[in-house]
């Protein structure tokens, strides 16, 4: 069995090797008509740029790195030239920014001009990258059915393994994850071969060529599925974990991936019906008729209204009845990835009081930012101010939106939120950054039936619960006092209850009365209650 597992790991690594290696082998050839089309679609007016680019990139075979560098260098040189003119022709100055240029200028050209083995063998490439990685993963995790021994909590060796204790393997994963997200968000031009690997799938689903977001969505679903298999084996004795994992996987595949793609196939806007504002921070962007939801007819209006109802009614009502877990660990995509790919890292979340303080400032800070940003967006809409018009201090609504998108949407939720799994645990974004989690947390704390009940005096302070709490809650500190756990950050994953060796913790939705009462006499000490009441006076 051990050998089978190793074979699985190797097969999977080979898949990853093809996938990752293809980044370094991508080549391009830009024919004249493709070049002309690109110049037109990007609305590039600088003759300086067009002339030089024409000479250096058209009808030449070169690597993607070379092509990308040339475009950026020429863009910069063109701007220097244009800005040195006596009468600056502003429309000829290209908007260049490190985090945008590659994505907005370079990527579209690279995407359509890719040549070489991968673009010509997309199907085959899909099988030797995704196919092998998935197959190997399934074999490796599947073999754990035997390797782990009889069903039960088998966290053996987690703290001694380099992949899960911030050892060298964890560090490699960390660099890989962060690198991937940086490329995905800011330099998708380098991911063109990986993007092409899922091109046949995208064409089959929506009829459109695959984009970096399609690649991301497909990877997301594949990774979650493979790691869900791991959970189904690891927690096969625990119905809560089995059902929860199945449901969150369903919502990811159907609601976040298939339905939006099918909508696109029918020429409707891409829309994730389970993604609630303020996690879905751009719900209210561009309400305007041209290309926002309101410009999409009946269905666009329906989506907008649904989004508002989801946030204002469904979310708080569900949190009242079930706690925020109904979303965070049963429905949400971020939560879904955290509970599957991130599960091996859950013990790395920091449990100190200091990190709790940082967490509260950060997450509520992001919530305030999200509300402010959205407020500004609505203000510009209703006051009919264009988003590029200055509002105050030289700042426009567009500036605020893009900085939110950059700092929170990309850096925090993606690069840090997932990239940092191997060093800070699997809920970095959910714990420190997600504004929706902050909102639901407030409801959960002050008005909800959900709590984790502590079973009287049975706690032995062993610390398994705290260790495996991905949200860094010091569960033990409550359990050993016989106190129920009511914390705004709890996402109800249920793992504290699963790893408890004495059956002390139970997630449940009960009456709101006495939800957070301590029960000191239950610790087993038969003290005189009347005397105790007198004493407290």
């Amino acid at each position: 069995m051990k050998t089978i597992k190793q074979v699985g790991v190797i097969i999977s690594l080979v898949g990853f090797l093809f996938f990752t290696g293809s980044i370094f082998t991508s080549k391009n050839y830009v024919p004249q008509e493709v070049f002309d089309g690109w110049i037109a679609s990007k609305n590039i007016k600088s003759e300086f740029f067009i002339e030089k680019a024409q000479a250096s990139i058209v009808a030449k075979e070169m690597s993607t790195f070379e092509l990308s560098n040339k475009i950026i260098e020429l863009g910069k040189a063109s701007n220097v030239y244009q800005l040195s003119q006596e009468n600056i022709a502003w429309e000829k100055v290209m908007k260049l920014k490190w985090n945008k240029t590659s994505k907005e200028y370079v990527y579209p050209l690279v995407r359509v001009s890719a040549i070489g083995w991968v673009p010509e063998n997309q199907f085959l490439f899909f099988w030797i990258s995704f196919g092998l990685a998935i197959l190997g993963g399934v074999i490796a995790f599947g073999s754990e059915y035997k390797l782990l021994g009889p069903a039960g909590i088998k966290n053996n060796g987690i703290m001694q393994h380099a992949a899960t204790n911030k050892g060298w393997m964890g560090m490699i994963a960390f660099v890989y994850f962060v690198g991937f997200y940086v490329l995905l968000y800011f330099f998708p031009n380098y991911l063109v071969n990986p993007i092409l690997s899922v091109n046949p799938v995208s064409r089959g689903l929506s009829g459109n060529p695959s984009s970096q977001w399609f690649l991301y969505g497909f990877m997301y679903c594949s990774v979650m599925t493979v790691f869900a298999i791991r959970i189904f084996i690891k927690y096969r004795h625990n119905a809560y974990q089995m059902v929860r994992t199945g449901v969150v996987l369903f919502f990811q595949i159907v609601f976040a991936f298939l339905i939006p793609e099918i909508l696109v196939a029918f020429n409707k806007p891409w829309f994730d019906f389970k993604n609630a504002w303020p996690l879905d921070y751009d719900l209210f962007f561009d309400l305007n008729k041209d290309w926002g939801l309101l410009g999409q007819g009946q269905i666009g209006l329906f989506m907008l209204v649904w989004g508002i109802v989801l946030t204002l009614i469904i979310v708080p009502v569900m949190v009242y009845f079930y706690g925020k877990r109904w979303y965070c660990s049963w429905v949400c995509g971020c939560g879904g990835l955290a509970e599957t790919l991130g599960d091996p890292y859950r013990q790395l979340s920091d449990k100190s009081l200091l990190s709790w303080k940082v967490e509260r400032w950060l997450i509520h800070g992001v919530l305030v930012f999200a509300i402010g940003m959205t407020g500004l967006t609505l203000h510009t809409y209703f006051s009919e101010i264009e988003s590029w018009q200055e509002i105050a201090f030289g700042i426009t609504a567009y500036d605020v939106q893009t900085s939110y998108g950059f700092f929170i949407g990309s850096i925090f939720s993606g690069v840090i939120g997932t990239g940092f799994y191997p060093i800070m645990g699997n809920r970095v974004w959910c714990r420190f950054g997600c504004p929706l989690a902050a909102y639901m947390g407030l409801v959960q704390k002050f008005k909800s039936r959900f709590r984790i009940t502590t079973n009287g005096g049975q706690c032995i302070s062993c610390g398994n619960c705290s260790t495996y709490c991905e949200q860094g809650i010091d569960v033990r500190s409550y359990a050993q006092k016989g106190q129920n756990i009511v914390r705004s950050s709890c996402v109800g994953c249920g793992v504290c209850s699963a790893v408890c060796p004495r059956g002390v913790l139970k997630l449940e939705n009960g009456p709101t009365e006495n939800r957070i009462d301590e029960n000191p006499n239950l610790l087993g000490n038969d003290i005189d209650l009347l005397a105790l009441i007198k004493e407290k006076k």
Partner: protein
Amino acid sequence: MKHVVIIGNGISGVTAARHIRKLSDHRITIISAESKYFFSRTALMYVFMGHMEFKHTQPYEKWFWQKNRIDLVEGFVQSIDTSDKKLILSNGSEILFDDLILATGSKPNKFGWPGQDLKGVQGLYSKQDLESLEENSKNCKRAVVVGGGLIGIEMAEMLHSRNIPVTFLVRESSFWNGVLPKEQSEIINKEIRENHIDLRLSTSLKEIISDEYGRAKAVVTNKGETIECTVVGLTAGVSPNIEFVKDSSIKINKGILVNEFLQTNCKDIYAIGDCAEQHNAIGQRRPIEAVWYTGRMMGETVARTICGTPVEYKPGHWFNSAKFIDIEYQTYGWVWAQPKENEDRFSWQDSTGKKSIIISFDKESKTFLGINTFGIRLRHERFDTWLTEKASVEKVLEHLKDANFDPEFFQHYEQEIIDKYNSDFNAQLTVRSKSWKRIFLKA
């Protein structure tokens, strides 16, 4: 402001310190030779198994002790001068006290086996034991664990988790059958064997054989068999750790003798936790209780007494829990290995043979006396209430859903259980549905 000194920073001593701080401004000092900071002894096994790191076993961060003005002294107390109220440490320093709490815990039993002090032979109790097991188990071809109690099965599980072959010698004819009823004891035998631990029942240790370097190389059993091994775990129970008290005027028997206020014969000196022995056993409890929960309760009680409200130690209804490899065990009230004269038993097992419930009740009055549960979590508070109100076994069974504490979506067995009772005792009980009102909203 008096100076309260506590010897021992286990659960008893630390609970006492915390509660004294809650109730008073006394100066508090805790002395320990084992480790500077409190850690949960029960979690040592998880460190070895790689579920946790040692730091995770420490329930309080370092700032906690300073913030709560609890001074921590690392040192070994050599002797106690009860008349001058001072402690003499092994490094020669002295500590004066106004009140003294002895919370020194236990030490593993050694019964004079030949070879019991060889290298590779050890108990599993302290942080140092964990460290030496880490050392001893390197390149281990086989380990032998001697003694079929809770620590024995934990040690077997620990070694097994690192793929070390384990032979487990149990003197009794079935695992822990001095405590567990026969059916449940047998479930654990099966569990041990299913995990490929070589369980030898009715087998005891005769001697441990040394190699030429003074290291254990084999054990010989009472059946004359020699088992080669490089690690020998001695887990034949524990006894109070009171060596340094023997020369003082504090009265001892097996443990330090205390009255119902946990006071020793010397004024202002108290003993709590594993090292304390009650003059008169409380209820059906043993005079010495080496259990986590009782240590904690004693700590709470003694804190009140020291802070001016003398409180008797009344541990309430008995409860306990453990985990035997993958089988969780909880108990509320008394279920003896052998039913007593006035007792009747109801026993149920599921089809996998891994879940089991045994209920003990009074033959005549049908009063519920206690429950043992394997694989089904039960609500402490419910059973505490039923025991206090002396509920009948039938009431308990009918309302078993109120007491279920398994995670959501777990299979329920109440109907199966009650069907079995109805057929065993010719009754017509029906399962009542769960009521939040009964569970949480007491009058």
